[in-house]
């Protein structure tokens, strides 16, 4: 925790204390969907980091002239443009991964973390802190996504990053991959456990 203290608050706060997934329980949909394999989770996380920090910076620059009546529409417009950009780049240079992630890249638009940070932070703060806030929230998302994905891949497929982790001899002895972990309920259970562990460590257990 000592290292975290030395970071700017915008960056460190959303990692653990105010983690968008584990504390605020936002962005659950993609956390459940793209955590079967670590590789997909990492690419998804990078895409989300880019979109949150990008939209936070752009909207922070725009905040003074932005008419409040069309605020949400403009935010969505900026976020959607960034997401489409990511999707196009993935299709051009990471075709295989973009096929695997399919609709979930496009669905970053509807990820409430992104719009949430734009509304709650970027519209009221200068570009640099907004960037840090976006980066922090993106990294917080990444932390949960990758932890869940790594556990699901090890337990569900016996691999990590696509490389076999459990030797064939263990399978020969009768070990079977845990099919539940490949399916969405596996993600629900792991995410629940993650939140439980985090709340216990932060001393929040049992609080309302």
């Amino acid at each position, binding site marked *: 925790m000592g290292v975290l203290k030395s970071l700017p608050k915008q960056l460190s706060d959303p990692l653990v204390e105010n983690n968008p997934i584990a504390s605020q329980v936002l962005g659950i949909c993609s956390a459940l969907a793209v955590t079967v394999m670590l590789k997909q989770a990492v690419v998804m996380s990078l895409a989300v980091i880019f979109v949150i920090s990008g939209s936070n910076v752009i909207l922070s620059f725009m905040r003074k002239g932005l008419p409040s009546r069309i605020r949400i529409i*403009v935010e969505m417009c900026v976020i959607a443009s960034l997401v489409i950009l990511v999707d*196009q780049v993935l299709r051009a240079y990471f075709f295989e991964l973009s096929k695997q992630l399919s609709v979930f890249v496009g669905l970053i638009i509807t990820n409430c973390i992104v719009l949430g940070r734009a509304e709650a932070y970027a519209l009221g703060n200068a570009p640099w802190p907004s960037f840090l806030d976006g980066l922090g929230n993106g990294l917080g998302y990444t932390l949960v996504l990758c932890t869940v994905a790594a556990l699901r891949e090890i337990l569900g497929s016996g691999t990590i990053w696509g490389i076999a982790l459990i030797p064939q001899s263990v399978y020969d002895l009768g070990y079977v991959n845990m099919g539940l972990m490949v399916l969405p309920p596996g993600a629900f259970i792991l995410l629940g456990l993650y939140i439980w562990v985090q709340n216990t460590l932060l001393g929040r257990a049992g609080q309302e």
Partner: protein
Amino acid sequence: MNDNTYTLMYAAIVCFICSFLLSLFAVGLQPAQREAATIDLYRNILTVFGFDGANMSKENVKSTFQNSIKQIVIDKRGKVYPDLKFSDLSDDQRCEILYTKFPSSSDDCKLSIYSKVDSQGSASAYAIPLEGKGLWSTLYGYLALENDGNTILGITFYKHGETPGLGAEISQPWFAENFKGKKLLDQSGTLASVKVYKGKAKDSGLAQDHVVDGISGATITADGVTDLLLHCAKVFDPFLAKIRKVGA
């Protein structure tokens, strides 16, 4: 400037900048996207013929494809046109394979198939295109047959929009693996195709040559695969019948 005019102007400018930048990127990235899609298609065709397509480098995919795969143009009656190139044909000259559209496509429309050729130029296997409806989307793939026109060598789905983890499993190696060695024709020589059974194939009570394991949670996608296999086997049957004669 009054408030409404300002708001409208602001919205118009935001829209203009966003759409301008996006179209710039879309056009700029198009060549790379086309290239990626072509390589992916080549990779899938190589895999369906039994090459280790998934682990080949881009260059390797291109050169292997050029050396060992040949595209053949045929018509609805199975007649081969050695002088035609499928890429030169316009959309009007190509048959619509989808079963809702196939009957209405013209009689002299052309179909494309791929063959795996050895160094002497003789074909050892053929791949026919597959197209049909799943649950959410149209499924596109290839079915490879040995040169007896009957035994399945492999199957692949390279484009679809099915649910990841459920219907999308049709493009996973384990699903394709089940099809290997299955037969299109039954013992009397009539077209039986292959059924994706809801559950384990061995519990189906059907002839094991014509049934594969289903995917739990993806019954409609699986039924779509069953339907499109039968339909596409029918579409290409005139051609396959010719190969069977040569083989026999």
